[in-house]
């Protein structure tokens, strides 16, 4: 396994920008390689710094509506950070500064007048580790709608059933909606989290390595579910598993050291990548 920058020492005044301009990266003009039909998310010149250290550098990309888009790249490349920009969850961390703009359905999400909770209702999220609330299954799924102000029992019942059906969980849990979700298997918990996320009917669903803690069978179920869900939702998925990316996604973005290296139709990324780093990564030479 070869890591092109491994042996390069950082000088005092050297940041990402200096490193990235080494010979191997000279082919530069990184980023989106393809025209995205019907984009829902537009990211322009996005740079994010954690207490001054850049984690995302000058990202420009569009994400298509009702498709699955995968972010791949080695650990620490910024793909989780990028996905968490889309619902502004990064702002919970101290010392984060963001430049550039993100538009979701032509709404500037960094607009100071924007209600952040409104944004998060429109952009749902599923986390790496399933995080069901310590409540009953019903209350878990109904949490988002209740926050949104829905009080009617019949409406909530309907939402809970529809969400659990969409998450392919209804038949397994319909008899025990009032039980705690804690006795569930990891895969069931993750599907519950998906049901919870789609209960608020978001436009986009962000998935941050949703299968990294699951066994292959549970992973298969989630992947089937993603294929199912992308009919109705825009899905952005971060994954370490390249087979997964090739199985579920329509578009794939390869990121490295905070930059978007290559972003194209999934087949092209995996079969005929333009950049050498992409090829090295997807063929398993590093990462």
């Amino acid at each position, binding site marked *: 396994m070869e890591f092109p920058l491994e042996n390069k020492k950082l000088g005092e005044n050297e940041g990402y920008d200096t490193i990235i301009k080494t010979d191997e990266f000279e082919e530069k003009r990184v980023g989106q390689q393809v025209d995205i039909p019907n984009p829902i998310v537009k990211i322009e010149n996005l740079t994010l710094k954690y207490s001054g250290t850049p984690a995302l550098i000058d990202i420009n990309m569009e994400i298509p509506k009702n498709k699955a888009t995968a972010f791949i790249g080695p650990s620490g490349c910024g793909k989780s950070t990028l996905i968490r920009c889309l*619902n502004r*969850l990064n702002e*919970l961390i101290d010392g984060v500064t963001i430049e550039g703009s993100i538009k979701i359905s032509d709404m500037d999400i960094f607009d100071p007048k924007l209600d952040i*909770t*409104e944004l*998060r*209702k429109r952009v*749902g*999220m599923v*986390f790496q*580790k*399933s*995080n*069901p*609330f*310590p*409540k009953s299954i019903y209350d878990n799924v109904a*949490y*988002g709608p209740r*926050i*949104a102000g829905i009080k009617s029992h019949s409406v909530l019942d309907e939402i809970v059933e529809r969400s659990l059906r969409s998450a392919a969980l209804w038949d397994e849990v319909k008899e025990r909606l009032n039980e*705690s*979700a*804690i006795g569930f*298997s*990891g895969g069931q*918990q993750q599907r519950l*989290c998906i049901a*919870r*996320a789609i209960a*608020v009917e978001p436009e986009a669903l962000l998935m941050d390595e949703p299968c990294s*803690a699951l066994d292959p069978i549970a992973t298969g179920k989630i992947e089937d579910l993603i294929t199912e869900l992308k009919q109705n939702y825009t899905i952005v998925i971060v994954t370490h598993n390249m087979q997964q990316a090739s199985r579920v996604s329509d578009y794939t973005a390869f990121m490295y050291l905070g930059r978007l290296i290559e972003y194209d139709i999934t087949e092209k990324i995996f079969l005929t990548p333009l950049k050498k780093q992409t090829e090295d990564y997807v063929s398993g030479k590093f990462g």
Partner: protein
Amino acid sequence: MKNFWKSGDPFIWVTGGALTFSLLMIGGLLFLIMAKGLGFFWSSDIAEVKLKDGSKLLGQITAREKIPQPGAPPGTPKRYRIQLQIGNRDIYGLDFRWVNEEEIAKIDYPRNAVLLERREWGNMYGFIKEIREGEVVVAQENEESWIALKDLLPRTQGIYKTIKRIGKKDIGAINYKIEGLRLDIRKLELQAGDQTSMQANIKSLEDQIEVQKKLYRNKESELASLYEKLAEDKIIVSTIDGREKEMSIGAIVRAYRPNDMSLLNKALLYISKVWEFVSGEPRESNTEGGIFPAIFGTVMMVLIMSIVVLPFGVLAALYLREYAKHGSLLRIVRICVNNLAGVPSIVFGIFGLGFFIYAIGGTIDNIFYSEALPTPTFGTGGIIWASLTLALLTVPVVIVATEEGLAAVPRAIREGSFALGATKFETIWRIVIPSAMPAILTGLILAIARATGEVAPLMITGVVKLAPELPIDGHFPFIHLERKFMHLGFHIYDVGFQSPNVEAAKPMVYATTLLLILIVVFLNLAAIIIRNRLRKRYATSAF
């Protein structure tokens, strides 16, 4: 040898040993308290002790101990002495007497020896001679009199109960009304205003007082006739040394002949005595009777404290953990909170006296109860001030436990809530606090345990030796938070160390201690059960 140390076995032994030692100490303490406290209610047989000099003693054997013989050569036979409760304090002056075993000629257990528990002067040991109703002799001789006494006792006790009820409830209510009217008059007098209408008002109030006073006099004459009736039935008891004592049967709480009782009857007597202890009122400057007011006061005080300390502690911890900006100031505040738990409790008591009672209570008096001044209403010790002082004392415990509970709520769960569009407040209210509830209740359990056992700060904030009224009664507004109250911890101190008759009070101290421990256990158990139920409901995911 080196391997022996390396293996860690000695360390396991040391840790196990430390635990065993602690458990033994606690177990031993509990066993001592249980044995002494529970034995107090068991009525042992009455012994008739004949001494070698010919004199006789009658009483219950309460203890036996070795007589120390300093300087005696080894092999000297051990000498023992026994402690007799001879009772009859009005005749002998002392309830207890030590007798050397070598002076004893013979110990008998006469079947007809009787034990009379009296409302005053403690137990009486002797033999019944005669029962009289007024001047008429109803029964003479032991057996006959005993049967007559058993017939008469329920009746006199019924009369006694009526007297108590009239004295406490009826006359109490009248006094309460008169006091209220008096204060109303005083209030009118203090108000500047229209003189004529004021005079008329005062006049009508004074008339009402007169009505009440008439009622009072009626009740008083009723009481007097009851007392007369109570004094009619008389009993004459002869003591072992031949003296005779005449007294009213109304002065007897319980009469029984322990030497003539079956085990079952003794067990029933035991239960009735335990019941009297937990449900009755104290007699004889707290050394006899029950301790119900103290139980009531203790539990009520702890409940008020819990109601105050829980929201305050949780809110403070929420601010510290969720909202306050991290930095050195926060760290200093946290250290201060932790150290607050180590301040001597008497200091809290003094603070409570100065701040709650004098400053706040005094202000309340000036504003709302000025007509009662100079008699303070809230400006003196009371259950509310004692509870607040204890709440102050225990709030650090709740804060620390709550903070730990909040910190233990996983970040993933909070983010999950934020990602669904919840605000910080909604997340805290709906997710974080319920998840931290078990930890919060752990804090409350620790606070309750600490508060129940605390005595020093209470002594200056409202605990008294004998409270005439409970803090809750039938008079509007039913809950009287300004009243002084009795407390088990203070009761132990008072009975054990301030009592005129320490020897007689000793078993009472053990029994009270046992009860206090039981209450602490009970309160804790209740909180633990609630916590476990919550824990099941709010168990966080762990896979």
